[in-house]
Structure formats: structure tokens, C-alpha cells
């Protein structure tokens, strides 16, 4: 499973980030390095889930505003600060979909679909794409989130757990069940 290295930090990087966060708690202007560092990631996360680019930019702005307003409550949990931002972004996006359901969309690359097949020990053929799309769009919201986070965005379980506010073990168990489910469905695909 390809994990996106962009989302990972070494101990040194985490410590460095913690220094930035503590500085920003004392002076909002010192939030700038964190804003610069994560703006693109958060925008991509939000935009990945919707059609409208403008709405995605608006929501990204809201995410950072909420982060600044709630920074005093932030507690370091050994994961990148991004995880906390992603959770805010996740809540903002879900809030939007609750009010305007039609806005939800799924974005993936062909490579992602290939990964899903390979992860489920199924050979990938381009002819499968419509069937895989159908399979994914029919997943429930919880499973769909897992597919997006794990297969499309290649996040580690620790981060997925943090975004979805569940334990890492729970994230792995859910993923295991999902993989089994996908395996069954994918095994029925025929060229």
C-alpha cells in the first residue's frame, strides 16, 4: 500500500512543529509558518471531496480561522499538527454536506483504482473502472471515508484514526473488514 510520505514527520519534525504551535499560542502572527506549511494540504483535502474550487477555498479559510480560534485548546498527541487541521477540515466538509448534499464528489486517479485492485489481490483492467466506480459510490459514508483516506490519499492508520476520531486499532479493523468486502466484490469483476 503506497503511503503518501507528505503526511509523515520524524520526531525532530514533530518537535520543531510543537515549538511553532507554542509560539503561535502566544502570538497569532506566529501562526504564519503553520498556515504556509499546511494551506495546500488542507485545500487539497477539502477540494478532493467537492466539485467547486471556490467553495473549497472558502472552507480552507474557515478551517484555519477555526484552528487559530481554538489553538489554545490544542494538545499535542504525537501526530503532526496537520491531523488536527484535517479533523477540523473533515468536520467542516461534513457540515457542508449535511446542508447541501449534492455537493459531495469523489476524486481519484486511475493509479488509485489500480491500488485498490492490487491491495485486494485482483488484477486491474481499465474495463473495470465503471464497475469499481459503482462499487465505491455505493459504499456507506464510513467506508467511503476510509477508501478516500487510505487508498486515494495514502494516509497511515494513525492519521486516519486521528482524523476520524477513532482509535488506530479501530481504523485497522474497519479497514480489514472493508478490504474483505471489496475483495468479494472485486473478485466478481470480469473483463
Amino acid at each position, binding site marked *: 500500500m503506497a503511503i503518501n510520505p507528505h503526511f509523515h514527520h*520524524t*520526531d525532530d519534525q514533530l518537535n520543531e512543529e510543537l515549538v511553532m504551535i507554542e509560539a503561535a499560542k502566544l502570538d*497569532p502572527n506566529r501562526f504564519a*509558518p503553520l498556515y504556509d506549511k499546511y494551506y495546500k494540504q488542507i*485545500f487539497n483535502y477539502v477540494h478532493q471531496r467537492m466539485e467547486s474550487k471556490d467553495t473549497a477555498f472558502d472552507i480552507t479559510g474557515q478551517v*484555519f480561522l477555526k484552528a487559530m480560534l481554538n489553538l489554545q485548546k490544542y494538545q499535542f498527541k*504525537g501526530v503532526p499538527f496537520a491531523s488536527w487541521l484535517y479533523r477540523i477540515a473533515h468536520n467542516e466538509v461534513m457540515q457542508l454536506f449535511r446542508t447541501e448534499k449534492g455537493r459531495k464528489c469523489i476524486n481519484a486517479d486511475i493509479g488509485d483504482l489500480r491500488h485498490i485492485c492490487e491491495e485486494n489481490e485482483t488484477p486491474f483492467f481499465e474495463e473495470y*473502472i465503471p464497475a469499481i*466506480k459503482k462499487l465505491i459510490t455505493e459504499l456507506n459514508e464510513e467506508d467511503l471515508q476510509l477508501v478516500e483516506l487510505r487508498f486515494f490519499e495514502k494516509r497511515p492508520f494513525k492519521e486516519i484514526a486521528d482524523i476520524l476520531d477513532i482509535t488506530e486499532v479501530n481504523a485497522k479493523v474497519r479497514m480489514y473488514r472493508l478490504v474483505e468486502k471489496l475483495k468479494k466484490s472485486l473478485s466478481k469483476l470480469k473483463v
Partner: protein
Amino acid sequence: MEPNFNIDRPKVSDEEINRHKDFDKLVKQFKEKSLKQAQGDESWWKNKKVQYSTVITGVTVICTITYFSLFKNQSKQKNTHETLITNAAPDKKNKKPFINAPSQKLRVPYSAYKINNANGGSITHPSSSKISIPKNSFVDKQGKDVIGDVTIEYREFHDIGDIVASGIPMAYDSAGTHYNLESAGMFDIKGSQNGEPVFIKPEKNIQVQLASSNDDNRFNQYYLDTVAGNWQYLQRDDAKPIFTNTTKAPTLPPKHEDLSKSSPKLLALKNVVEVIIPKRIDSVTTLYTKKAAQLPKAKEPLKPAQPSKGRPTFRLDGSYNEFPELAAFDNVIFEVGPENTNYTQEMHEITWSDVKVTQGPVKGKNYVLNLTYRNRSEKLVVYPVLSGADFAKAQSSYENKFGEYQELVEKRKASEQRLMAEMQAKQDAYLAEQKKKREQYETEKAQLFAKYDVERQNQIAGSFKTMSNSNRAISLFNVSRFGIFNSDCPHKTPEGNSVNPIFVLDNKDNFISPDFIYLVEHNTKSVYTLSAQDAFKINYRPGNDYTICVFKQNKLYLCSKTDFQQAVASGTNKFKVKSLAGESENLVDFKKALEI
């Protein structure tokens, strides 16, 4: 409503994303919101219901404090119990580190290299791995560019001995499935300046060409995420073989240039062709140009002219004693040229007190007559003409002089042609020599390069035979952060047989209770870390070769391949181990003991 599903939707460009970034606006919004929140808090306090509730809560708090003060002694014991429980909680400091090197003596040492951040550079490790660092790749904790030298610490792990010694866990979890990684080469890279860690800029990548032992295409690249405690898949490892016994080693054209620079014979020939002969050709040209310039020059005599009909003329009629410079113009008539618009007839009626004759606009053909009387002065362009006997005499003299002139011109032409022929002959000789020397140079060069290529091929082929396994392929890693990178192939945990082992020292009833053990599977080059939590349960594939490294209080014990086979063959769970004293002192002896 089903969501839309887009495949390969175009990405929003970084430029567009950056255009929307506005930190000042964010801070402004933050300040406004903070202010509103503060005002909201104040209005909330003004609410009467809240005020009443606060009073009630206050009374309750006072009662509670009084109650606890009265029963303080009774609650003390309970507090003590809580403290004990807290103390019993696991101490983070005692937690086993994620990368747990079993012995400091077996530690694979780092090699340290200095690289100037502004210049970047490349490092060649003794294993022939190469690290290419672009300019300005490093930033400090504050994200500022590092100024000066950066220390790059780098080490590699190539075999199961290195892996056991490193303490780096090789277990890999992918989507809930457990694997163990077989490594084709692993490296650990970090950077610092004056002891402070530095970081790789997000947009920069360090390239590591890892000299690897395996050019199979079944390996992937992984990064060890020490925070998540798992390996992260990066990409397929497209390891490129350096060359094989059956393929021809690549020729090295750039080396030829160096070679030609180091051969004195080639250098001398090149000097003759490119410097000495061109200089000689130039000097011939210069010599013959000078000789031609020294040939006597013929000056064409001036042909006498008669006055034009109807044109006014002046004749100088003055005292040549008083104006000796005008004596040369005795008998000469000056015809006023049509270009003199200032000319008037009355000029002939004036007795000019001063006359000067100077060179005219066309040298040797006309003159300027400067006439002065009191305050008046006039300038006229005049042409010298002769008339009557003067003209006939001048014409005769001209014809004689013109004949001499023509003779001289012919002579000069002949001399010039002779000089040109001589020069051309000499230059042709030099060009012929240059051509010959150039051909000689090219032949020498080709022979030298051919000889070099053969030697080089032999040298590479010879090196290949003596080359260690670790140098046979190159795996290219793009390193965007410091840490541990690995070229690996995941294997599922062996599902053949299993045994819960007991380790017996020197075949006596001297049991070892390990702190942790490493199970080394030689066939797959895999290292499994086993802990007491799993009762050190060993899963193994019958027929494969295994060694067990047992660590107990910093001491190393080893169950050899033979002892392992004997134990599983006899169906017992007692594995004979022997203490490694000298062998655990250094990595080389440890690898020998591991039989690798």
C-alpha cells in the same frame, strides 16, 4: 443522491492555491472573531438566568469545600492510593525504543560528510553509493536557509548481520496484514549543523543512489515512519544493474577527454596543429605584407591643364622678394572654379594687399586663394592652369614623367606578384604540414582511446569479478526528509511449523530467559524480531536455514543453523545456544558467527 465520481480530475495549480493564501486577512478575521467572542461572553454574563445560576453554583461550591475540609483526614488515605496507582502506570522513559540496537558494540557506524548548503554537492560513500545534494537544500528549525557547512551522517545496512545489529524492526503492516521485509539494502541519513538538526526543504530532494545487492524487480522502496511505528511504501524500486558478466561495460566518452589531456604526445601534436603552425602562417602573412609595403611607390604626375573658355582667372603679380612662398606659382594662372558663389567681377579691380595660397578641397588638383584688403577678405577655390609656351613645356615634362611612372607601376606589380607567390607557397607548405600533423594526432588519439577502452573494459570486468554483492545494482531514492529508507520485498510470516522455544546454554540445564530474540531466515534474508509478549513463538518453514540471536542483559547468545536444524528435527523445543563473547565485540566477527 450518489456523489459524482471524477477520474483524473486536473489538479489545482500551486500558483492558484498560493494566490488564495492570505495570512493577513486570516489574522484580521481572527481578531474580529476574538473580539466578537469576547463581547458575546460579556452579554452572556448580563443574562439574569445566568447570574442566578452562578449564585446557586457558588453556594454549592462553598458547601462542598467545607465538607471536604471537615473530612480531610478520611479522604487522605484514598488520595495516597490514587498516587500509588499513578506510580504504577507505565513509565514512558522505560518504554523500549522503536529502534532498539541490541548492542552498541555491533552498531553500524555513521560516516560523516560536510556539504556547503549554498553550493550543494555530491558524496561518494565507500560502498560506491552516491548522494547528490542540490544547492540550498537545508533549512533550520525556523525554516530559514542554513548558512555554511552541513554535516551529513550516513550509514548503510546490506545484510542480515547489519539488520540485526541495527535493531531496526523489519515488520511491516499493510492494511491489517503483517509482513516481514527482506532487504536489498537500507540506509539511514541525517543532517545537522553544530549539533542542531537541519531539515530538507519541502521542494528539494536529495538523491541517493544506493549500491544494492539485488537487481531483482520484486523490491519496493519504504521509509521508516518512527512516529507511526511502521514502514511506509514509497514506490517500486527500479534497481538498475551496473552491468553483468554477459553485458559489455559502458564506454566512457568523457574520460577520453581527460585521457587526451594527460598524454604528452597528444598534447605536443595538438600544440603543433592548433598553435605553432597557425602562428607560422600568420608570421608569413605579416612578413610579406611588410615586404610589399616597402616596394617603391610610383606617384602619378599631375597633368597640366589649359584655361577653360569663359572662366575668370587670376595671375599673381607681386613681389616674390616680398612673398617668396609664392615664387613657385610664377607663370601659373589660377582659374576660378564654378563652385565660388561669392565671386564677383569687381574682385579683379582690387589690389589685394595680402595673398595666401593653401591646399584646396581636392588635394593636388585645386587650391584656395585667400585674398585680403583692409577689413575685407575673400576665399576662392582656384585651379592652376598654364597657357601658351608654359603649357607646352609643362606638357612635355608631364609626358616624360608619366612614362617613368608607368614603368615603375609595372615593376611594382611584378614584385608584388612575386611576393604573393612566395607567401602562398610558404603558407601552403605550412597548411600541408598542419594537415599531416592533424592526421597524426587523430590516429594517435584513436589508438590511445582504443587501448584505454580495452584496458578499461578489462579493469571493469576484473572489478566485477572481485566486486562484493552490494555493488551490483543501483537503487535510486528521492529523499525528501531524513530518516531510514529501505529497498524491500515483503514476505508473509512463515506458516509452516511453529514452536515455543526454550534456550539452553552450552547444552546444559542452564536456561536463558531472553530479553528479545531475532530469528534470521537465511533463505529469504529476513530478520524477525520476537518478544516475550508472544512467548518468543517461532514460525518456520521446514527445510529453510535459520539462526537465532538471543539477547539477555546486553549479552548475545547464538543458536547456529546446525543447532536449529537439530532441534526442530528432534521435535524438541530446546534450542542449544552458545555465548558469543569475542564475536559480539565487532560486526565482522558477528557476521561470521551468523554464517553469512
